[in-house]
């Protein structure tokens, strides 16, 4: 089963455990500047929203890359940057409609979420289940369940 990161922003408290987990997983340090998931704080609305790559099926970044440095991991479906091939041209950062692939000045390469080989550290670290890792074909299951729960079955039972 292929799985996807699923984000329910209404549950996010803005603790940034996901950002620390991401940078630690990929770089061995706790460093928000190196996180591939970012939490945005819309202060005046009281909303906090985690945001990262959705792993597009037809990935703009992958199609735009002139040196084929971005490839699909067959097991996870993640679009993964091969740093050995990446030349740091940044065309993918322009191509991505969502801004989720970014240049890393320290390495001279781009980086993006690679789903941590199928065990995303952000989802594991999230204390409120705002970020979960679920069946790609059923990312809507929780929402469906919630609405299903509101269905009024009383009328039929009494009919």
């Amino acid at each position: 089963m292929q799985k996807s990161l699923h984000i329910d922003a209404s549950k996010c408290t803005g603790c940034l455990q996901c950002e620390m987990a991401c940078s630690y997983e990929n770089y061995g340090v706790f460093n928000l500047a190196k996180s591939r998931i970012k939490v945005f704080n819309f202060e005046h609305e009281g909303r906090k929203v985690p945001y990262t790559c959705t792993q597009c099926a037809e990935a703009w970044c992958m199609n735009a890359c002139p040196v084929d440095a971005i490839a699909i991991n067959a097991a996870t479906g993640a679009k993964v940057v091969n740093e050995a091939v990446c030349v740091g041209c940044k065309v993918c950062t322009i191509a991505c409609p969502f801004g989720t692939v970014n240049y890393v000045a320290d390495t001279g390469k781009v980086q993006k979420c690679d789903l941590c080989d199928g065990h995303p550290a952000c989802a594991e670290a999230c204390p409120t289940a705002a970020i979960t890792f679920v069946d790609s074909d059923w990312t809507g299951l929780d929402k469906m369940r919630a609405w299903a729960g509101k269905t009024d079955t009383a009328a039929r039972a009494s009919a």
Partner: protein
Amino acid sequence: MAWTRKILRVDLSKGTCKAEPLNMEWAQLYLGQRGLATKYFVSEVDPKVDPLSPANKLIMTTGPLTGTPASTGGRYSVVTKGALTGAIACSNSGGYFGAELKFAGWDMIIFEGKSPKPVYLWIENDKAELRDAAHLWGKTTWQTEETIKKAHQDPQIRISSIGRAGENGVLYACVVNDLHRAAGRSGVGTVMGSKNLKAVAVRGTLGVGNLKDPKAFMAAAAAGKKVLAGNAVTGQGLPTYGTQVLMNVINEMGALPTRNHRDVQFEDARKISAEAMREKRPTDGKTHLVANSACFGCTIACGRISKIDETHFSVVNKPEYWGANGGLEYEAAWALGAANGVGDLEALQYANLICNEDGFDPISFGATVGAAMELFELGIIKKEQIGMDAPFGSAKALCELARMTAVGEGFGKELGMGSARLCAKYGKPELSMSVKGQEFPAYDSRGIQGMGLTYATSNRGACHLRSYTVASEVLGIPVKTDPLVTEGKADLVKAFQDATAVFDSAGICIFTSFAWSLADVQPQLDAACEGNWTMEKLGEVGERIWNMERQFNLAAGFTAKDDDLPPRLKTEPAKTGPAKGLVNGIDKMRPEYYKTRGWDAQGVPSKETLKRLGL
């Protein structure tokens, strides 16, 4: 390392910024944050110094767990000699600023001297420089954050600043970071203002790495988080209701100080409680509470984000206050509400916004308004002096006085002195509900006896965050003790004080201690920090910090006489509730406490005690 091993020394008089290595010998004895910064402070500053003179210093400090995924590992503290108290001050704040400072590579910043003109400190990793702040002076903390972020074209900068209260010499001004988190008490923001230091802006992209044993640390941090999630207070009560979960609980206990401590129960407590924040308003059908909010790294998320009722008299025609913003915490709701008999939730939220926006402590402000209302009701301060009628319960007076205090207008100037100076000025010093010049927080010590000893002996003046025996006396953490008796409270207070000093020095939030004992913190510290951090060593560190602070206060001129409560709490019994008929038994607890501490009858640490602690 858990420590970056680097401190930044900023000479505001000369305008210089210099990096220095951290004293690692001291780090082993005082851990970090509160302990370590206080060690630097007492080693460099004359205890007799005038808090508002250039000779006073101000330290912003992180702990070894700040900037790590240890739950709540984002704390920082401001250490100085308090403007309100003249005692050692250490005010702790969450938000994101502390972690950012650590990510920039600094354990602490020591500010000394006084800048000839308003400045702000700009830190970008290892680069630090003072910049002109003429355009920021006179601005609120919110405007200051926005202006600095715009000027640097970087929304990811984190900022701590003072508002107009800190500029205007309000003696309980705070340092506000991330819009609505604050190093709140004792007037640390007043000291910052006296130095012409408007703000500290930080962008840190270096991160925290090289912990002693990262694998063991991640395991210990995860285990700690599990304990927090499984605990009724940190896993359910605080996330669901915030600290406001206490309003109805403490009122039921007859320990909610009301109308300047005349009463111990507030008839309108429910109207200003967490439950009320979650109810739909009749005016607009919306709830006051918008969202829960966590500080950096916090898996509890007690913070509240609220929206004020746009039709409330305080904000009609003021759309700048209509957005989501920092919501009421229990202490603020009590001080702005019960302490002066105001049961209007929206009015409290407005006053709270003003406190955040212009940077002053809602506890001391609210309690000072309470004292002023009593003086008004006694006919000692007249309507003409205040500029309005100000009886207990007046929401209008509360809101207007908040604004006047922020900008130092009219009677607001007098409220800005705090209740001790205000009441002394009008010949009624006994009406100030304070210890060492600092106002009580939200627990009446007639109904929770241990808190009387906590307040009387707190090194930074009356405060609940130095030994929160409410945990034991009300919630049964770690063991239930009877709130109505004095027996055993000396030992309890000492144990809480010493343990709290360790939490405050580690970089984590004291709220974890509802679920964590030192035994939960120890494995996290030991895995993160160089050295062998045993339970025994941590216990010693806590006691050492407490005695170091005590020594500073004694040298500053405080005596056993200052370890006392206002006469009201010792002579006027609680009128209602479970504590009806009781006064606080401080005179019984104090000598026991001194003995437990290894201090003499005058409250001076004995030679043996000091020697044992290496002081």
